[in-house]
């Protein structure tokens, strides 16, 4: 048993922390919040030079093929921002979905450019009914003469406005799992992506209006293989999203502790009041619960153990943790916390966004129960 980071993980953490402090301090994060696209080109270029965009992509496809645990160290640091950008959408969920679902030729065509940051993937699964299961996939393309024609809408697609390439889950049969994945050029005629306005971070509507996709763009070359591939990618990818959330919780915790020390009311630091202390205790319990649930899931994945139940548990716990951590932080910070320039609000909005993204806590708890075969 050893719950410490390895030496190389500590080094990655130091590098990533320094990068975030230099390139993405609070004012940068706050400045990006209103952008239609989550991608800041200069940040993206520097991250690609560090090899972060291909961290999970095997070396034979141009990435560095690190373990999930190694990648989690990076994502935890990115989450401290919370740094916007399609890091997870492209480098984790997109790349893993291609790895799991594509033919060898497709992998070689797509993944090296993803690792270099030239192609940016977004995975379009959910539809207006926001189901996270295969039954929710109703977008059915017409197939004729070697072409799929897409008409319809995908909703709550993360980072679609910065994507160059979409992986779209479509219905290709009547069976509940008859889902296929199409690789669609995001700039093709008839494709439109729009960031949803409001208290939500880069969740997008993607519409398809007579979009023609060659049959060669069917990932894996066979229909009905899509959901299995996506589910495998999800199992491996979710703990990285959880790590990003843990980083967010950690930053919110540190902000709250600092505020409890610095903010003077009634002549004393507000953290001297036990009511204020209780908020931070609640916060750190959520933070640590999310942290250790996430790391146990990562460890199971990296060591080839059955991980499904742990992954579902981690996402359920992390989703709730981020939301609750931000709530507690707002109680500690009062007016200060709602000043946009202070930076807490970016976390709060992200916590609401990621609460549902790729499955809300209740959904994951139910899948956990199924995985445990109760």
């Amino acid at each position, binding site marked *: *048993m*050893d*719950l*410490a*980071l390895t030496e190389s993980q500590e080094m990655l953490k130091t590098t990533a922390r320094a990068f975030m402090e230099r390139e993405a301090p609070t004012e940068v994060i706050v400045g990006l919040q209103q952008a239609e696209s989550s991608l800041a080109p200069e940040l993206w270029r520097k991250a690609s030079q560090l090899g972060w965009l291909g961290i999970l992509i095997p070396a034979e496809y141009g990435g560095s093929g690190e373990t999930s*645990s190694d990648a989690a160290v990076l994502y935890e640091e990115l989450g401290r921002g919370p740094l916007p950008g399609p890091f997870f959408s492209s480098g984790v969920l997109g790349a893993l979905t291609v790895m799991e679902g594509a033919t060898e030729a497709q992998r070689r065509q797509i993944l090296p450019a993803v690792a270099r940051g030239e192609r940016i993937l977004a995975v379009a699964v959910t539809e207006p009914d926001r189901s996270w299961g295969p039954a929710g996939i109703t977008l059915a393309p017409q197939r004729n003469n070697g072409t799929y024609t897409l008409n319809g809408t995908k909703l709550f697609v993360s980072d679609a406005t910065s994507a160059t390439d979409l992986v779209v889950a479509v219905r290709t049969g009547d069976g509940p799992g008859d889902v296929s994945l199409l690789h669609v050029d995001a700039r093709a005629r008839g494709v439109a992506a729009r960031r949803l306005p409001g208290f939500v971070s880069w969740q997008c509507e993607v519409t398809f209006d007579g979009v023609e996709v060659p049959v060669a763009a069917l990932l894996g070359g066979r229909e009905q293989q899509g959901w299995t591939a996506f589910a495998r990618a999800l199992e491996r990818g979710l703990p990285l999203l959880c790590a990003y959330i843990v980083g967010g919780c950690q930053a919110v915790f540190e902000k709250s*502790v600092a505020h*409890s*020390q610095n903010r003077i009311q009634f002549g*004393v*630091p*507000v*953290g*001297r*009041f*036990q009511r*204020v*202390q*209780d908020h*931070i*205790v609640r916060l*750190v*319990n959520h933070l*640590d*619960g999310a942290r*250790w*649930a996430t*790391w*146990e899931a*990562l*460890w*199971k994945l990296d060591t080839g153990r059955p991980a499904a139940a742990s992954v579902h*548990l981690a996402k*359920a*716990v992390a989703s709730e943790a981020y939301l609750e951590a931000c709530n507690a932080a707002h109680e500690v910070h009062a007016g200060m916390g709602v000043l946009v320039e202070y930076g807490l609000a970016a976390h709060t909005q992200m916590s609401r966004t990621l609460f549902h993204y790729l499955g809300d806590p*209740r959904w994951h*708890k*139910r899948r*956990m*129960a199924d995985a*445990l075969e*109760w």
Partner: protein
Amino acid sequence: MDFEVTYTEAQQGFRREVRAWLDASVPPDVKRIPASPEDNLRRYRQLRDLGRKLGAKGWLYPTAPAKYGGGGLDVDHAIILEEEVDRYDLSLPPYYDSGGRLGAASILVWGTEAQREAFLPPIYTGRVRTWQLLTEPGAGSDLAGVRMTTAVRDGDEYVINGQKIFVGSDNGADRIWMIACTDPNGARHENLSWFMIDANLPGVTVQPMELMGTGGEGGTDSGVKNTVFFDDVRVPAFALVGGENKGWTVASTHLELEHGGGGRIGKNRVWDRLLRYCQETKRDGVPLSQQADVRDSLADIYIKAEITRLFGLRNFWLTYARRKRSYEGPQLSYFRKTAGLWMTGAILDMVGPAALTTDTVWGSPDGFLELQQRNGIVSVHPGGTTDIQRVQMARRIGIGRTTREAAGTVH
């Protein structure tokens, strides 16, 4: 990271040796819940006897130093032993002996060599069972406010008078340790002293308290407690550990451990039985475990149990890898206690009134759910209330203060 202990072939050999020994040595009916006070005493004696046999092999306190009668084994061997006795739903020691576990750690850190040689071997070999005496009627959460129990130096002895409450379990003890006030006019934290004494000295009277908890000798969360009265109890000055008026310093060690600083590995004993109960019990002709609302509740309960397990595992690693600890001990204690209390409501909601009865026909097997309904509540206070744990966490995190309080020394 590695969340599991990986064993060498030699260690697996040790596991086989332990398993064979336990199969031959553990009384076959040890898992029973005692049916009567007589049966409770009989079972306790069986377990004490098992404890002495374990102690003779150095397996009762496996990581304790061999020179004082402990096993002198490394943590991997200790984990194997814990895992193997866990198969019998037992821990080490196999009876209520938190006084031995916590007291021995304190003596190891703060005692003189002569005191270690005198006090530790009887504990580590299972010859004595030890209770801790801390709380008084006027000093519970404010443990440093102990005033009622006093110790006055008289030649080579101290004379102890006073009263301690919420002590021990059923069936008596051989040794007790306590903090007493040795300087009524002294400054707070500098007026207490720590004594290890014989439980059967003249002037010591033990009187059971009537509490809402039950559970007898199982594990460490016994619901049976006593009041102990001291009337001119004369103890040798040798019983004083850590020096006069240094008792609060000595207490920092066992309080840290009691607050969860040592961590824990091992499974949640209620969970497995709860799931099985829900799989075997039907409502409207359908097993509880197949009903959507019950599955949702089970998932919430399971997650609380899992987070508690992970916090325990983390603290266990922090302790044995000798890592820097901060708020993690009281965090485990706080989380475990509030989760247990919350679970009483969640289980009652899920199972219904059958959770409240020990009836052999209509209740849960051995009344294990009724026991949880009581113990989930009773367990909130021993070793520091949930509020005390939060105060500890806040000080160590540095909420509202830039100097962080350090965790207690446990090595």
